[in-house]
């Protein structure tokens, strides 16, 4: 039987070449992401001061996190694309398989032939993918460096295991991907081999309906769940909805495609060729659905994740605006806080300083009570002034309780971090340890900049005076902010509070864009490759159909034009279904933002959306006619008469 697989493989190589390449690219992508993630173990930071050590650790953790998300994305794409491609190759060979059945192949033998092919395909793809992982790592590192993600001291270790893991995934996915397709193939009746035209197979099987609807339900469930958790889960939501939604619509594709293409194909039906193209789309529903599937994934993945990350930044900005009740921000040092507070027209002046402090908070680990050292997100404030320029509603306690050795701590229920007033903590100021009480518990905020508030009384006056400070000023009613700003200018740079928040958002946006580039560039390239692959497979299987069309009087140019219109209809259907997934993800983030900051936030990356849609359509409009030009080279009479 394996001999038969081998020959099927050798003979149908144009059909399989695409499948091998998808496995190879997937394996390379997974291997490179895992290799970099595995290399991102921080170096020995023993000799460094605690804050620098923490910075180094964070940088390495950041690389590891981004690469782990990349690996998950690459894994999903590999599973999705390889499975789709392979079931497509099976669907394209119904008649061959029926012939095998006619000649006495049992159902099990058909499945063995296809599984044998899958093993060969997976192994060939993995063997090709392993050497490709080198260039993939270099490209990924280049993207990371460009995004200034790679910390000093990063050394790429090249353990062998990520390659083996990726190769194993590649082969396993090829085999599992063919499992469902081969079950369907085994049911092809032998009679189909002798009939002139293959009986229209019912593409929407019960299993496909069930799987598609289950994935759809899972997508809705995530959107609903997001409304209870808040915007902290935006990225996970964007990723999750993109994955389940794309799988749902790909599975339901054969059912959704005809009605959607009816709408989108309306302009095309004005001409005879357009009507033919549209009929072909509906007739070859399996082929059309297989071509639309990678388009759905591409749109869903790129736009959902980008939309999620951008919405997070917007939510932080909205949160800052609604929680801040100040007009101006002065960048100065702690020494001038008093002077600024005494300026005429200043109603309140709150100095917020970041000092090299550490706080040991009570925590629970596997072995019971423990402490957790926190180095980031600690702000030194004056509780009274802070309360006047921030709208804070603590979960427990009041800002006025921050007297003596006491601090305020933000709770993070989504991470399972909760605090109660009265718990003890330790503030580390230089070499001094101060035992303090948690007096106030603050509600969770999206911005991690002020997770712990330390009253200024706990820090020596001299240190405060020397350290940089952002002083938030509120201008008293009846005073001109411009006059106050001019006066404050004597102590440092003054900007409006909105501009100050916007500047922070711009910084965040730059980091986001860099992160998204690292995450999405290779994944998107891989998906684009899958789109091309699907168009090529769909086109090469139609040699005979094209020949018959030409015998019916179509010129070669008209056949090519028809396939171009078909490809455009199918691609735009994929774009619309993908956009529905993105809409679900953005709706989920909107309700999550409503919970977190009170406003529904929708960030549609319009430029990226336009580029994705335009690029995909252009690709379809170029690749599909090119393929059909190639397959219509031979004189039609020869082909129409020839057996397939």
């Amino acid at each position, binding site marked *: 039987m394996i001999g038969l697989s081998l020959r099927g493989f050798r003979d*149908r190589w144009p059909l399989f070449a695409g499948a091998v390449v998808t496995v190879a690219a997937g394996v390379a992508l997974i291997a490179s992401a895992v290799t970099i993630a595995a290399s991102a173990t921080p170096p020995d930071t023993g000799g460094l001061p605690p804050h620098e050590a923490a910075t180094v650790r964070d940088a390495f953790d950041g690389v590891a996190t981004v690469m782990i998300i990349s690996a998950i994305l690459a894994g999903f794409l590999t599973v999705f694309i390889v499975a789709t491609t392979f079931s497509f190759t099976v669907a394209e060979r119904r008649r061959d398989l029926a012939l095998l059945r006619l000649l006495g192949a049992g*159902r099990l033998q058909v499945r063995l032939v296809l599984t044998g092919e899958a093993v060969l395909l997976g192994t060939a793809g993995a063997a090709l993918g392993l050497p490709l992982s080198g260039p993939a790592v270099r490209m990924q590192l280049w993207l990371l460096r460009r995004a200034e993600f790679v910390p000093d001291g990063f050394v790429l270790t090249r353990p062998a295991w990520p390659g083996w893991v990726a190769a194993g995934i590649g082969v396993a996915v090829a085999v599992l991907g063919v499992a469902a397709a081969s079950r369907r193939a085994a049911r092809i009746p032998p009679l189909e081999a*002798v009939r002139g035209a293959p009986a229209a197979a019912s593409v929407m099987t019960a299993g496909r309906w069930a799987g598609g609807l289950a994935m759809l339900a899972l997508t809705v469930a995530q959107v609903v769940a997001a409304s209870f958790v808040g915007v902290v889960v935006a990225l996970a939501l964007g990723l999750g909805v993109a994955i389940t939604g794309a799988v749902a619509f790909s599975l339901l594709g054969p059912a959704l495609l005809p009605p959607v293409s009816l709408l989108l194909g309306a302009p095309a039906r004005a001409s005879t060729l357009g009507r033919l193209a549209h009929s072909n789309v509906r007739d070859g529903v399996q082929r059309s659905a297989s071509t639309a599937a990678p388009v759905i994934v591409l749109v869903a993945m790129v736009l959902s994740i980008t939309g999620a990350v951008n919405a997070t930044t917007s939510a932080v900005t909205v949160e800052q605006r609604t929680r801040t009740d100040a007009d101006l921000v002065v960048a100065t040092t702690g020494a001038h806080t008093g002077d600024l507070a005494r300026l005429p027209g200043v109603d309140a002046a709150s100095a917020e300083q970041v000092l090299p402090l550490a706080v040991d908070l009570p925590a629970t680990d596997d072995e019971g009570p423990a402490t957790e050292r926190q180095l980031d997100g600690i702000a030194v404030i004056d509780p009274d002034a802070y309360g006047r320029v921030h709208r804070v509603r603590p979960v427990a306690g009041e800002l006025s309780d921050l007297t003596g050795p006491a601090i305020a701590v933000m709770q993070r229920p989504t991470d399972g971090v909760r605090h109660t007033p009265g718990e003890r903590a330790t503030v580390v100021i230089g070499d001094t340890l101060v035992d303090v009480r948690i007096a106030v518990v603050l509600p969770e905020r999206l911005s991690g900049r002020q997770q712990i508030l330390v009253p200024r009384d706990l820090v020596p006056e001299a240190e405060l005076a020397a350290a940089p400070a952002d002083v938030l000023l509120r201008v008293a009613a009846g005073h001109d902010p411009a006059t106050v700003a001019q006066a404050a200018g004597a102590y440092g740079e003054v900007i409006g509070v909105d501009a100050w928040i916007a500047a922070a958002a711009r910084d965040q946006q730059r980091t986001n864009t860099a992160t998204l580039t690292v995450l999405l560039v290779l994944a998107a390239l891989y998906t684009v490759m899958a789109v091309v692959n699907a168009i090529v497979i769909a086109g090469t299987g139609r040699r005979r159909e094209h020949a018959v069309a030409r015998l019916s009087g179509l010129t070669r140019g008209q056949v090519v034009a028809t396939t171009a219109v078909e490809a455009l209809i199918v691609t735009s259907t994929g774009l619309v279904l993908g956009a529905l997934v993105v809409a679900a993800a953005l709706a989920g983030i909107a309700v999550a933002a409503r919970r977190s900051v009170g406003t529904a936030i929708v960030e549609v990356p319009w430029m990226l959306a336009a580029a994705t849609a335009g690029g995909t359509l252009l690709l379809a409009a170029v690749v599909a006619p090119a393929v059909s030009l190639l397959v219509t080279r031979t004189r039609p009479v020869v082909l129409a008469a020839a057996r397939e």
Partner: protein
Amino acid sequence: MSETTPLPPALSGRAGPPDAAVAAIGVTRTYGAGATSVAALTDVSLQVPPGTWLAVMGPSGSGKSTLLHCLAGLERADAGRVVLAGEDITGASDRALTRLRRTAVGFAFQNFNLVGSLTAAQNVALPLRLAGARPSRARIRAALESVGLGDRARHKPGQLSGGQQQRVALARAIATRPAVLFADEPTGALDSAASRTVLGLLRRMVDGGQTVVMVTHDPAAAAAADSVVFLVDGGIADRLERPSAGAVAATLAGLERR
């Protein structure tokens, strides 16, 4: 797995209908349901004795191909029974039918005969290999030589002419020795010289004991058979034994005038 339905005593065992390689007993086959249903076969009964060659003729849409498919177990009869190689296949499971396709049934169709990726020799050996046998090289070569293609063993179907492809299909039947060889328009796509070669080969096989059921449009092909049944509107309208091409053509013309 119920391989076969027990036969009534009169029909059981290899005797089936006595001495028939394949037999139809009151076979009816209807496509579709309700107002749009089309009766392709209505209460057709016939038997083909072993080692004989039956041609099935009739106008287009008369049910010829459906009869062939029912006899070969590719389609199920809605009513009536089909006994193939001594087994009642009317309600047979897919597994039983698969086993029959390997051992009891051979096919030679106008088109879609051979696996395009396999060589002529591999195509000849395929049913035996699928059945788990390891046919000897000599046996395969002998089969190909008997159809005059000993030198084409390594060619793929795409490199062979239509007549040669049809001869490879016959060599496959020679190597497998099925109880019944079903042929659907085996000469339909061939020129007259190639047709004569194929018909001559079929005759030689029948003389060697092979049972053949052949659907054809061509009176000359039908005249090569031992007997001819004529189907009209899903029923047997006439039957000729050892006919001449002229008699076949005349009967056919008569039937089409009715």
